[in-house]
């Protein structure tokens, strides 16, 4: 009898296709790509603003064009999914104890959504409608 342990190789590129939960994870990670692209577009907009009114108007026009609008809607959907997945896991990362008991996770998740809506509303009131 000899020892000759067999190692099963894992695909470095295709591993995430093996399990629905890995695909869900990759989807969650992928959402940040769209948020990143959206931020780059915002930075490009700031750059155009620094170049003068005509350039900024051009930027606004292209952002409101069909491609810009479709991307904004897709990015918004991904951003909401991103927030949803992260709010869902907050009770794991930040459990709260009241005396001897852990606060139910649903309350922590709900508090995050509440904070999100309060902050969004405040921002809306201060900055006003962007359109």
């Amino acid at each position, binding site marked *: *009898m000899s*020892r000759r*342990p*067999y190692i099963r190789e894992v695909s470095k590129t295709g591993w995430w296709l093996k399990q629905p*939960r890995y695909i869900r994870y990759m989807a969650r990670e992928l959402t940040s790509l769209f948020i990143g692209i959206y931020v780059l577009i915002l930075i490009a907009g700031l750059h155009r603003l620094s170049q003068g009114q005509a350039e900024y108007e051009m930027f606004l026009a292209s952002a409101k064009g069909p491609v810009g609008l479709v991307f904004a809607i897709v990015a918004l959907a991904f951003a909401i999914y991103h927030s949803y997945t992260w709010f869902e*896991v907050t009770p794991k*990362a930040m459990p709260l104890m009241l005396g001897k008991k852990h606060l139910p996770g649903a309350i922590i998740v709900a508090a995050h959504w509440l904070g999100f809506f309060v902050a969004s509303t405040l921002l809306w009131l201060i900055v006003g409608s962007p359109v």
Partner: protein
Amino acid sequence: MTERTVELEVLRYDPDKDDAPGFQTYTVPYREDWVVLDAINYVKDELDRTLSYRWSCHMAVCGSCGMMINGEPSLSCHTFLRDCPEKIRIEPLQNFPVERDLVVVMDDFIDKLGSVKPYIVAKEERSVDDGEYLQTPAQLAKFKQYTACINCLLCYSACPQYALNDDFVGPAALALAHRYNLDSRDVGRSAREDVVASNPGIWECSFVGACSEVCPKSVDPAAAIQQTKIASAGDYFMKFLMPWKRK
């Protein structure tokens, strides 16, 4: 009336004969109250005594009988035939080398577990005459869920980060480190930090969360790791804010 049966497709590997593992199919009787481990025991007792696998308690306490059942890391004593399809594919836990048949080499985990000092590091030695270390129910509640770990390795088998990087300390060891860090009787947090707060420690985890989904004891290792990340990031910033307060 013919007796109802199930088919087990079991991954076999004999290091003396085989270059690579291959599947062998066994037909076993179906019983309403049987778990997959009962079916495997039937194979061993009645059909093929060369089949190797680990098991002991048959009640989800010992953590020995973990295996891939239809691609999912599971305790075979905790998975009923009635919840499985008629063909059941059984493989050794993934992400571990196969020693023989369903037996994996778990040395890597054992080494990592030891490296996080999974025991109480007390402030001062106490003799038996000094009595117990006292703890309130609230202090116990802080870490109790993490004490339920049975070292069954399902979490390592589910973790894609561990699959891709052997250096990753991994879910169970990090959850147990967190369990002792949270224990009011323990002062070993800084002694564990070299391993726990390193890159192959908590920072290798990208929070896939698969470990917690497959854990048969609801330990939630993913939660333990995220909490350790927050505490460790806090330590990092405190170093700049209060450099005089060294550990």
